[in-house]
């Protein structure tokens, strides 16, 4: 069983604050993350919700003006908080790795694919040039690139978008890390290619028992591949739980509204449900619950008192004063 398996990532109370000329901007506030080996957890949120900032903080890749703090941050049994940069650098690639959204800018345009993948093996495994190249060919075959022995000597611009994304995934899994963080890995891709990449991620975590943290804004993607979902809004997790539960009976009005605004085949010709307003900017957060100006369930209490993230059912948490009503509404539809 999955939930009985060992933890790959354990984060408590993660906060990321950016120092800017106009003062400090909280991007991530008090976020807990758990991903087990072999599990695919989706971090769902819109632009500015803090999902990418949280992921980068875990990887130790935050921008220079960011202040990261956490109560606990563990990769397997290694405490990430106490690590200095050289040690963290060694962990990145070997035990945790990241797949970026824009494959063209994440790859070095003047090195061949073989050199870029091989560098990982030479740096971390001490392989020779020849061994590293052979390992690279192997890996390219594993992520489904046809004729890998020939293509290993080509440059990034010679590959299509989907192939480049596969190369990034190949690099991320090269050293068999425990944790792969994929930041919008399919957003720039066409649906048929997206389906291939999602399937690849899904099979890799199953075959290699990796933990995958998938960062996305796409409910369809979440629905297809996630085991568990965490929904972020305005820098905080507003709801978390197993994908089946959460997508079936959302406990936070934001999730409920997002699900309702997805066009359904049987509602053709009707107006879509539209969430009023737009997401708050991190510099101007509303008082109380950050979602209250857009919420259909809003009561007076929401305007002044921010609801804490609390357990609402087995394995489910939500941050809403009216979560019972939301869940009831979702069921009766």
């Amino acid at each position, binding site marked *: 069983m999955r939930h009985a398996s060992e933890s790959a990532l354990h984060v408590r109370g993660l906060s990321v604050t950016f120092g800017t000329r106009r003062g400090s901007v909280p991007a991530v506030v008090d976020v807990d993350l758990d991903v087990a080996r072999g599990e695919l957890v989706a971090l769902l949120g819109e632009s500015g919700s803090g999902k990418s900032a949280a992921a980068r903080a875990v990887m130790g890749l935050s921008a220079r003006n960011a202040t990261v703090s956490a109560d606990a941050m563990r990769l397997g049994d290694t405490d990430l908080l106490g690590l200095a940069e050289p040690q963290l650098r060694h962990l990145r690639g070997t035990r945790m790795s990241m797949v970026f959204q824009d494959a063209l800018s994440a790859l070095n345009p003047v090195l061949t694919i073989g050199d870029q993948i091989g560098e990982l093996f030479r740096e971390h495994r001490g392989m020779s040039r020849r061994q590293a190249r052979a390992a690279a060919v192997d890996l390219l075959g594993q992520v489904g690139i046809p004729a890998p022995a020939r293509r290993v000597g080509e440059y990034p611009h010679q590959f299509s978008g989907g192939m480049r994304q596969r190369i990034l995934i190949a690099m991320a899994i090269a050293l068999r890390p425990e944790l792969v963080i994929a930041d919008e890995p399919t957003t720039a891709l066409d*649906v048929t290619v997206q389906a291939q990449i999602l399937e690849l991620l899904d099979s890799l975590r199953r075959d290699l028992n990796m933990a995958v943290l998938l960062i996305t804004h796409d409910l369809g993607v979440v629905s297809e591949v996630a085991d568990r979902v965490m929904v972020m809004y305005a820098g905080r997790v507003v709801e978390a739980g197993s994908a089946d539960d959460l997508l079936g009976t959302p406990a936070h009005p934001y999730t409920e509204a997002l699900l309702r605004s997805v066009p359904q085949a049987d509602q053709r010709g009707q107006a879509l449900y539209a969430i009023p307003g*737009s997401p708050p900017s991190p510099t101007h957060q509303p008082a109380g619950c950050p979602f209250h100006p857009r919420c259909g369930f809003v009561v007076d209490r929401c305007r002044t008192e921010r609801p804490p993230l609390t357990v609402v059912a087995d394995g489910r948490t939500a941050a809403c004063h009216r979560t019972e009503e939301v869940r009831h509404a979702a069921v009766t539809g």
Partner: protein
Amino acid sequence: MPPSPGDLVLDAQDLHKSFATGRTGWHRTRVSAVDGVSLRLRAGESLGIVGESGCGKSTLARMLVGLERPDSGSITIHGRDVARTRGRDRRLLRRQVQMVFQDPYTSLDPRMSVLDLLAEPLIVHKRVDGAAARRDRVAELLSLVNLAPELMHRYPHQFSGGQRQRIGIARALALEPEVLVCDEPVSALDVSVQAQVVNLLRDLQHRMGIALVFIAHDLSVVRHVADRTAVMYLGRLAEIGDTTTVYEEPTHPYTQALLSASPVVDRSRRRLADRIMLAGDPPSPTDPPSGCRFHTRCRFRQDRCSQEQPVLRSLDGPADRLVACHFAEQTRDSAGAR
């Protein structure tokens, strides 16, 4: 005079467009972006165009609004061919067919106020005389897209993405066009505001009788908005027809693969695992396959497909739908069996 519903407002016939991309050896290479596409648009209807990147849907859109000139083919508006002409007939195209762009962050001049942005087309086309009258018209346009008229003195950076896209739509509406071509109008917006813009476009279509050409890669949005849907593959139409028919009874093998790969928000109907796989990568548009351009990736491929280009044809049955496949009858039946 506004056309009554059902009138033909735009008739594009056999459009071709290719772009020079440089040379390999002695040969100039050209990308064939659009290769023989014909579309008809009736007043007040919405036509969705779907297809993957590089299939020519944006080039087609740009030809329809006059931002590109077709190499050959005609675009007829009210009986006048506007594709090749200059001057007055060209202006007719600009006035009747307007475009809503994908990215509301780059398509609005940051140094112009909303008033200037919306008044510009009115001035260029000499539609409204006098500053006061123009201001009234701008206020009217803003309320049309559900923005408060008091906002007209603000600048684009003071608006959110969704509001900016509304301004882009208001600007496109300024000349009271009969056709609005929307190229990925919601894909740059936050998920939670996409529905607002989709609703607005549909509302304008119904209220003002504007015909919409709606290009998107999100198949579920097109299904929601479009009365008819066209599927493009490598510059050609693979299938076009009534949206319900195309989605529920996809017949071109490419349409079937495309629809089966699009994720749905329904855990009980997850289908990534049993989707129709496409063999290989999309072929390069500089060197498109012979015959049917889809034959290199098609699971029903036969010898004939690599030699003979299939023409769009209707199938037996009542459905208003055309398919460009030699074996459409067989593929349709196989889809039903899945």
